[in-house]
């Protein structure tokens, strides 16, 4: 199924290691630095999506919504309540995590497509909410959005768009921390429990694995991390609008997941980096860009069943360890 602990950490270390030295080469090219920062931000969001969808088997389609909730919450906390952006980000993550639990609760009783649709409904309703009078009352700025978000400041460094190298390394730290957390979850009892639940919910339950608790916990964790990164994004770019809730961003995130391989963590990190790069090259195509993104999903889902990781495995014969086979094999018999 997935990689073992060693190749997983090696894979992540190589990717982030290469990322870490990139500023040496392109540190003075502003828009390339922006692209690198966005690679890291989306890597976290896509990783969270992979954790909840690929591993926990919950068809959550609310990932962008949690990202936007985190971004708006952090901006509002820092602007309207004067909270230091660092703590505002943490609070925003908590708010997004709370929403994750709220959305997760009705989803616990639901199956397959229903979960996708409830979470997607949250996504669909968020834009009218942020633009409505209710949204304006809590400081979302309505259709205008939020325009002057203070930057993150830590240790006397101001992480603004003018200081992209600092932002980049902050994003790298964030990405590494999130990746380690996700990896720990996948390799822990949680991850095994999810595999068991995905293969046979009834059988797992009969062994005492509570689907409810783990599902709720994964909703809370992934939406917390996604919201936190959303907050980081808001403080970095300095302005927010509901444009992020367009279907094209949602589909872009989906391309990251499909390209990296669903449930093939950490392939999704590579998927995110590649997708941000591809998307950047498509921007010259203007109104054709979303069309091509849509077509890309169709083609990739058909042709790349396990993403790039699957391809690599097929060509390089990456073998999963025997120990892992024993774990997954044990819950296979339903």
């Amino acid at each position, binding site marked *: 199924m997935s990689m073992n602990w060693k190749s997983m950490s090696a894979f992540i270390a190589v990717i982030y290691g290469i990322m870490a030295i990139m500023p040496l080469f392109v540190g003075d090219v502003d828009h390339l630095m922006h692209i690198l920062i966005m690679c890291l931000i989306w890597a976290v969001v896509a990783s969270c999506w992979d954790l909840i*969808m690929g591993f926990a088997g919950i*068809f959550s*389609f609310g990932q962008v919504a949690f990202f936007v909730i985190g971004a708006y919450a952090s901006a509002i906390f820092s602007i309207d309540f004067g909270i230091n952006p660092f703590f505002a980000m943490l609070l925003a993550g908590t708010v997004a995590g709370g929403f994750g639990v709220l959305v997760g609760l*009705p989803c616990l*009783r*639901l*199956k*397959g*497509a*229903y979960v*996708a*649709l*409830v979470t997607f*409904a949250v996504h*669909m*309703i968020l834009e*009218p*909410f942020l633009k*409505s009078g209710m949204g304006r009352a809590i400081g979302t700025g309505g259709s205008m959005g939020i325009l002057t978000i203070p930057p993150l400041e830590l240790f006397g460094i101001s992480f603004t768009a003018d200081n992209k190298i600092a932002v980049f390394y902050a994003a790298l730290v964030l990405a590494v921390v999130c990746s380690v957390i996700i990896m720990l979850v996948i390799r822990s009892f949680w991850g095994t429990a999810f595999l068991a639940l995905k293969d046979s919910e009834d059988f797992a339950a009969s062994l005492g694995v509570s689907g409810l608790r783990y599902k709720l916990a994964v909703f809370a964790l992934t939406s917390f991390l996604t919201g936190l990164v959303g907050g980081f994004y808001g403080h970095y770019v300095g302005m927010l609008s509901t444009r992020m809730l367009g*279907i*094209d961003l*949602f*589909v872009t995130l*989906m391309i990251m997941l*499909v390209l990296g391989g*669903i*449930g093939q963590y950490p392939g999704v990190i590579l998927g995110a980096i590649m997708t941000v790069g591809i998307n950047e090259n498509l921007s010259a195509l203007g*109104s*054709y860009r*979303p*069309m091509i*993104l*849509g*077509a*890309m*999903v*169709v083609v990739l*889902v*058909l042709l790349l*069943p396990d993403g790039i990781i699957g391809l690599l495995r097929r060509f390089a014969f990456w073998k999963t360890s025997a120990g892992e086979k024993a774990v997954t094999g044990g819950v296979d018999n339903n």
Partner: protein
Amino acid sequence: MLLEYLDVFISGMTIGSVYALMAVGLTLVYGVSRAFNFAYGSFYSLGGYIAWVLMMLIGLRGGYFMVFALAIPILMVFGYFTEKAIVAPLRKRSDWEVKVMMITLGLALFMDNGYQVLFGPRMKSLPPIMDGAIEAGGIYISNQDLMIFILSITGILAFRWILNNTRIGMAVRAVAQNPDGAQIVGIPKDKIFAATFGISTVMVGAGGVLLAQKYFISPMGGWDILVKSWVITAFGGMGSIRGGLYAAFILGLLEAFVGYWFGLNWVLFALFAVLLTTLAIRPQGLMGKWG
């Protein structure tokens, strides 16, 4: 005051009837093949655009009769081959359910932006299917609303008749009950999956033709329809045509009255509240079987 409410009521019934047609199409595909089509809203717009091209661009004569005569086969073929091309190949995989949702979401983005490139972002309108109105004792019903209502209900009844009385309808029901069993007795399961996809495309596309004359056709206009069709399906009960019918009228009226009292912006919130309440209290919906 009372007459105003009556207007709102009629408008709710009209929308409700079209919603019913579209929700039944959605529940059909999910009920038979467990595939959820995220491009459903884009198929709605497709119906509207086909009608617009036929009537306004080509200047087809013969009114809506000819539009339906041409649009229904086009939609049927389009739906059938879409299923064959992008849904059927996924069925063999273990995670095909979510892959179908993803691929149809990609298709939706492709189609919506295709409309934008082909027809521009400006909204298109269609002429009313019938002019004039019926007036009786101060009650005023436009012939357009009446025709939309009659055609939608006819569509649903025709669908029910096909499902209950024809060989293909019986095959569809057999596949819905037990795909493998159906195949054993010689029913071509894969063709039935594609055919139901085609039929549902016809239903939502016809809904698009009917509603486009009251509202407008726009490239992104389908998303509302997807959400509404789905809320209706969940509220009425997955797989239950009668439940879908009741739900469509209830939610059509809810939409009309919420729009009238609070403004159209609140409709989506109201539907969302209905959805959550339904799923919390009675996840199988009004009349559906759970699953």
